């Protein structure tokens, strides 16, 4: 069996190579979106360390072609599954880096002499600042979810899929639970994803604020 870079090159240079690349790009955009990535109207990105979904996919493909990352199996389906895992891994590395996540407690940030005191040896629990950010993220998730439900409330099929998605992410299981043909389930999932992404962050934030007041 040809080695991993050779198989990948053959697949990506084949008749479906461009479609595969665009598909991976879309998935990377989805994953980054879930982490909170947005691109504003000016086209500027808001990702840590200047990364973009494009750069993430570029890095993954480059590593596969150079043999730094490998995939088993043969064919498009196994390649895409492997690539999705690599994209998640690369995205996670970016967003989970301490420099991207940490809100340094003010009392530490203002100290310039590198000194420690007993407050530096606290527990492993998140700081109050980190907890606040987490709460805000949950509030945004809840608001986006409510706005999405409001939008699809008159669509019975989409509502059924939404209910199923609370318990499972498997399209096959969703089809089984709802009795909806699997092809339609795929379409419904893409529709829901598109609708969720279309609810722009400023609208979500405004709605969240109104509910809090």
């Amino acid at each position, binding site marked *: 069996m040809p080695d991993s870079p050779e198989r990948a090159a053959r697949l990506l240079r084949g008749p479906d190579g461009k479609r595969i690349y665009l598909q991976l790009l879309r998935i990377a955009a989805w994953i980054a979106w*879930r982490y909170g990535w947005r691109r504003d109207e000016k086209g500027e990105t808001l990702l840590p360390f200047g990364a973009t979904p494009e750069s993430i996919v570029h890095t993954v493909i480059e590593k596969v072609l150079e043999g730094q990352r490998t995939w088993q199996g043969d064919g498009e389906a196994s390649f895409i599954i492997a690539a999705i895992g690599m994209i998640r891994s690369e995205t996670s590395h970016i967003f989970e880096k301490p420099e991207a996540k940490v809100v340094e407690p003010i009392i530490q940030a203002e100290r310039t002499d590198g000194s420690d005191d007993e407050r530096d040896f606290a527990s492993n629990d998140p700081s109050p600042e980190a907890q606040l950010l987490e709460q805000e993220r949950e509030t945004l998730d*809840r608001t986006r979810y409510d706005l999405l439900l409001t939008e699809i409330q008159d669509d019975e099929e989409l509502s059924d899929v939404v209910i199923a998605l609370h318990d499972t992410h*498997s399209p096959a299981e969703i089809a089984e639970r709802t009795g909806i043909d699997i092809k339609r389930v795929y379409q419904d999932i893409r529709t829901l994803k598109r609708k969720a992404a279309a609810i722009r962050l400023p609208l979500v934030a405004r709605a969240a604020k109104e509910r809090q007041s």
Partner: protein
Amino acid sequence: MKEKQSPAGVFLDNLLKAACESEPGSIEEIRQDLHDHRIDPEAELAAFQQLLKTHAPTWQERAEMERREAVRKLAEPSPPKDRAAIIEGIKQLVAGMQALGSSVPAGAFHRNFESAEQQDLESLFQDLSHQLQQLKSGTKRQDG
């Protein structure tokens, strides 16, 4: 993504995973989704082609790259064997680059040629030759 999540968070994560596991839909749908995320599919496909050329070139592309590299090396003069002639050649290259308005790297000015190894001098000669060729090519393009 997180151990403890709100039901909304679980739903959104499941929606993402389900979307990744679903059939991709038509190419037009993929393109539209990319536009929705403000990603230019055409620009990215061009970058993709370049990525393949660089990291998985076909034998024709590899042959073309090697041919261009060979032509580039042929066009560059070989350094003279004589040490004094190399130093003189470096000074002429520096003068040539300055005449074309280029700022020459400080090392070429201040290097103590007397203590430099033969290999270093030859390497510097070739680097400066290449840079001068590049400058001349750029000048020709500007003149049209």
